């Protein structure tokens, strides 16, 4: 399986994306902002279709759209980020705009499938270069802000009193989420960003590990699920996104079941 260039590229891309999605998702789930990240991926979809229309790469549009939406969401604060209705509205309008752009595109069908459900086997070496850059930037950013972000997440009032800039962190974090979302969509598609972003992180958070161990474990589990999905799809001919989604759901349920049994 590793004899093929596109498979080696796929494994590398999955590594780069999983290492970012795990830890970013860990904070996302802890902060209760998973729905916000879902909306970001949909705004990214509108951005990607818009970029295709202009003849740009979809990754540029995805990252640009999600980043703009993430920063705006962070600036608006709890007025938007914490409100289901507002996020739902943003999400549906973005999807609608994406649908319009797709309609205006001539080669819409294949582009739509790749954007919505991912196309990990179609990742080009050039795109891989971009993923390296984005992943390195994301991990560096998260490494710098992890400590105050953890404090601000667990004890916002105390953190504010100690001089932690809450709103700046909120904006920076949502910007990180936006970039991670754009990366993740390359593998799982915008509709299934949850599978790598939220499922491994939520599974790990159930374990009650210490923060640093949890961040590491989330990266590890995301990587295992992404590679597992690739391998399973190689042997079964089912889409990679399907297997990653299934593994994510199964992992979450299994950990829950194991805890139930142990609690008895």
């Amino acid at each position, binding site marked *: 399986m590793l004899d093929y260039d596109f498979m080696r590229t796929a494994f590398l891309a999955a590594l780069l994306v999983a290492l970012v999605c795990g830890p970013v998702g860990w904070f996302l789930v802890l902060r209760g902002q998973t729905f916000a990240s879902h909306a970001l991926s949909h705004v990214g979809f509108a951005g990607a279709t818009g970029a295709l229309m202009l003849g740009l790469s979809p990754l540029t549009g995805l990252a640009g759209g999600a980043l703009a939406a993430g920063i705006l969401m962070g600036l608006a604060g709890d007025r938007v980020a914490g409100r289901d209705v507002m996020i739902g509205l943003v999400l549906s309008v973005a999807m609608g705009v994406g649908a319009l752009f797709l309609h205006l595109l001539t080669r819409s069908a294949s582009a739509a499938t790749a954007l919505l459900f991912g196309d990990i086997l179609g990742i080009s070496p050039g795109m891989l270069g971009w993923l390296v850059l984005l992943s390195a930037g994301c991990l560096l950013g998260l490494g710098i802000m992890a*400590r105050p972000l953890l404090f601000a997440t*667990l004890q916002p*009032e105390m953190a504010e*009193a100690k001089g932690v800039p809450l709103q700046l962190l909120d904006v920076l974090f949502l910007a990180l989420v936006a970039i991670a979302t754009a990366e993740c969509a390359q593998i799982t598609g915008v509709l299934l960003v949850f599978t790598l972003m939220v499922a491994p992180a939520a599974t790990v*958070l159930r374990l009650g590990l210490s923060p*640093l161990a949890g961040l590491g474990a989330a990266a590890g589990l995301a990587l295992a699920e992404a590679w597992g999905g690739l391998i399973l799809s190689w042997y079964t001919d089912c889409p990679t996104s399907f297997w990653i989604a299934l593994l994510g759901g199964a992992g979450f349920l299994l950990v829950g079941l194991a805890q139930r049994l142990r609690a008895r």
Partner: protein
Amino acid sequence: MTAVLSSSPDSIRLHDVTLARGGRVVLSQISLAIPQGSFVGVLGANGAGKTTLFHALLGLEPAVQGSMQINGQPVQRGHRSVGYMPQMRKLIGGQFTGWSMVASALHGQRWGLPWYGRAGRAAVDAALAAVDAQDLAQRPVAALSGGERQRLLLAQTLLDDPSVLLLDEPLASLDPARMRETVERIHTLARARNMTVLMSAHDINPLLGLMDHVLYLARGRALLGTVDEVITTKALTALYGAPVDVVRAGGRVFVVAEGGGSALQEHDCGGCGAHA
């Protein structure tokens, strides 16, 4: 009014301070000085300005006018020697152990990874020991009682070794037996470390006998003094500008407003006029 309480150096000094919240003046032209090491109960009804005063002392909201000093320095946000314990609210990260929860506040304002090092881990252990919470260290926070979670919060405020502690309604969600225990614990800690403590409360009784001074807030004004000076019919009637009776019965103190309601409690909770 200015109240100078003793000759020891002042920990907190307000001069002619006016504080507003949402454009409405909450406290007007307050001047007071609290000596280092004093244990102060901050009393007043909801909306009297207890939280606003704390926010101002933390540098989170600037004063409309006047000057505020802590340990001789102007109030500033993120002051290391000021510890703040907010009211308990919805728990986030309940799956973490007590140790991880407390550690998250250790130099939480610094950039970088939440990596604590040997000295940091020792500091967390010491803070847990100071509130007798070693046995909570390895348990998930979600499995702890309100009183136990509060001990963790208190441990977090001790991490920076503060000289001033601001405690916002630490008794609010505790049952009566835990209230007295909590006040005694904080009092012992404050004595041992010579900390100045401002603790807001709805009921004066759990604090009786332990606090050095009362800071009573009402109608935009503040009255600071010993319990015997402040909690009197005359002093409180003057502060409220309306007849208020102080009744002592069974070793407890009740502040009763004209019409029978309690002056401190919210008036919509019928039966709780039994507390001051």
